[in-house]
């Protein structure tokens, strides 16, 4: 290309070079799309198409058969005014409020300790991470036993140290905390691994410099470790809030299609409304509201991050 440009003094050369470049460009465009093609088809057919269709459904009356009719905002009004759906929304928020902070705090504490555990580190890590690779259905089957007051060793343990031993899944006050316990138990290992990766990236020289300046453990934690870990904290906070709002598997395995009002969550309702009642319009409206809420929660966290997240690069 360098020689072509240095020779390009006569207009004829210039034109020839330009058309050659255009051919090359066209070729490059085509090659680009060829490489992209499989995923582009996937994006259009299995994501963008369904997304557009979901929005149409949210404004339609439809049971999957028969004719579809325009519903205006009727589906959204139905979702917002339904007391059971409101209850399920509150349950979902309650689950998130219980699960996210407890999981993140304990994951950080464990990661912090594992960092100091020397050779035992990977031995302990095996145990903390094992539930992550296990399917949520198998996990729920185990906890079904642990939550059954007649046979639960957990309740026996609680009673023996003088704590109340509730009927976890039947008691309206305990069913959401029970889901949160399972969620924390299964999700902890992933967050620990993320925190450990973050902790490993903190330069030792910084901590040593703080040691020389006479900083205590607490000061090092507050002034160095936590600020440098803030991108990890933000990432985990965003992803775990999104995950918590979508809790479904445990509830379905615990309760099948007959979960009582205090145990229902938003996604459970979406599945029930869509695939039991075949009211695709209302289910889509509820799913759209969930999406908007998640977008808003993520946007808020990204907006507030400037105040507390430190990026080193």
């Amino acid at each position: 290309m360098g020689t072509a440009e240095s020779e390009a003094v006569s207009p004829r050369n210039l034109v020839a070079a330009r058309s050659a470049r255009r051919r090359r460009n066209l070729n490059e465009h085509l090659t680009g799309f060829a490489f992209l093609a499989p995923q582009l088809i996937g994006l259009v057919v299995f994501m963008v198409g369904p997304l557009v269709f979901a929005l149409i459904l949210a404004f339609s009356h439809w049971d999957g058969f028969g004719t579809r009719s325009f519903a205006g905002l009727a589906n959204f009004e139905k979702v917002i005014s339904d007391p059971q759906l409101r209850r399920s929304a509150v349950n979902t928020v309650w689950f998130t409020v219980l699960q996210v902070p407890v999981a993140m705090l304990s994951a950080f504490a464990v990661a912090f300790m594992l960092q100091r555990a020397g050779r035992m580190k990977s031995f302990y890590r095996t145990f903390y991470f094992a539930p992550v690779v296990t399917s949520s259905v198998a996990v729920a089957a185990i906890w079904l036993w642990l939550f059954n007051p007649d046979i639960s060793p957990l309740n026996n343990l609680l009673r023996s140290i003088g704590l109340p031993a509730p009927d976890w899944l039947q008691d309206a006050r305990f069913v959401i905390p029970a889901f949160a316990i399972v969620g924390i138990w299964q999700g902890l290992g992933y967050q620990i691994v993320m925190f450990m990766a973050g902790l490993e990236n903190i330069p030792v020289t910084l901590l040593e410099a703080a040691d020389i300046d006479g900083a205590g453990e607490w000061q090092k934690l507050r002034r160095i470790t936590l600020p440098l870990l803030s991108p990890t904290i933000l990432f985990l906070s965003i992803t775990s809030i999104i995950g918590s709002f979508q809790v479904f598997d445990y509830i379905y395995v615990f309760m099948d299609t007959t979960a009582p009002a205090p145990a229902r969550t938003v996604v459970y309702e979406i599945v029930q409304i869509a695939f039991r009642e075949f009211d695709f319009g209302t289910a889509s409206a509820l799913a759209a509201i969930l999406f908007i809420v998640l977008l808003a929660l993520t946007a808020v966290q990204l907006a507030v991050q400037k105040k507390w997240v430190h990026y080193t690069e």
Partner: protein
Amino acid sequence: MNTNHNALGLRPARIVLNLFLAIGALAMAGPFIWMMFSSFKPLGEIFAQPPKLLPQEWHFDNYPRALAAADFGRGFFNSFYIAATVTLVSLLTSAMAAYAFARLRFFGRNSLFMAFLATMMVPMQLTVIPLYLVMGWLHWVDTHLALIVPAALFNAFGVFLLRQYIRGIPLELEEAAAIDGAGRVRIFLTIILPLLRTPMTALGIFVFLGQWNSFFHPLIFLNSDDKFTIPLLVNQFKGQYGSDWTSLMAAATLAAAPLLLIFVIAQRQIVEGIALSGSKT
């Protein structure tokens, strides 16, 4: 003098630290241990008060009973070939798309890349209803194609992860190959793909785990028992034999054991792979 003080001062702290970690590890392992021992108990023993961890009388009948009640062999086959197919195909298509986004100039590249990124925010519950209808039109409901094709052809996270990696590869390597007359396809196959081994291993583990354990889409798309994956079989078993607790634990053990075994063997790769995939986002 200073080190001496440290050595003395550190010991109790070490013990407390290990104590905390060990109690935590036990709490994590406890449910698994309970599951495994319970799967060897006779049904009558489960109501013992106080509950005992070890079977009083070892009982090996729960496994044959669970295996007879549901076709777990078939379930394993289904789960494995679905997860393996999705993993292999989606790795290839993701790497191809990632290469296009990282290295090729084509019309609408940046907006298309933004579109891929944006879809990571979309909850699957929003698209599952139209997706179900699309599968209906394609006559793919109650077939494994409904699970394999969308997952194999669309993986925004994978495209994003691999693109970040390809951008980190020095251009000189490709330029040298281009001077030697290599086309884009050959450059992709002989230079880019081999260099992507680390992130592709991580991504592959991630995809395989997700597919193997997936419950939501199989639950919606599959109806026939012989098409069921392991999570669906365990859930169905629970529904039909819910009070047969010891067999349920045998079924749960069967479902959990293969991945736990693989995990213990390949712990380092799995954990580092997952940490890696998180740190790039």
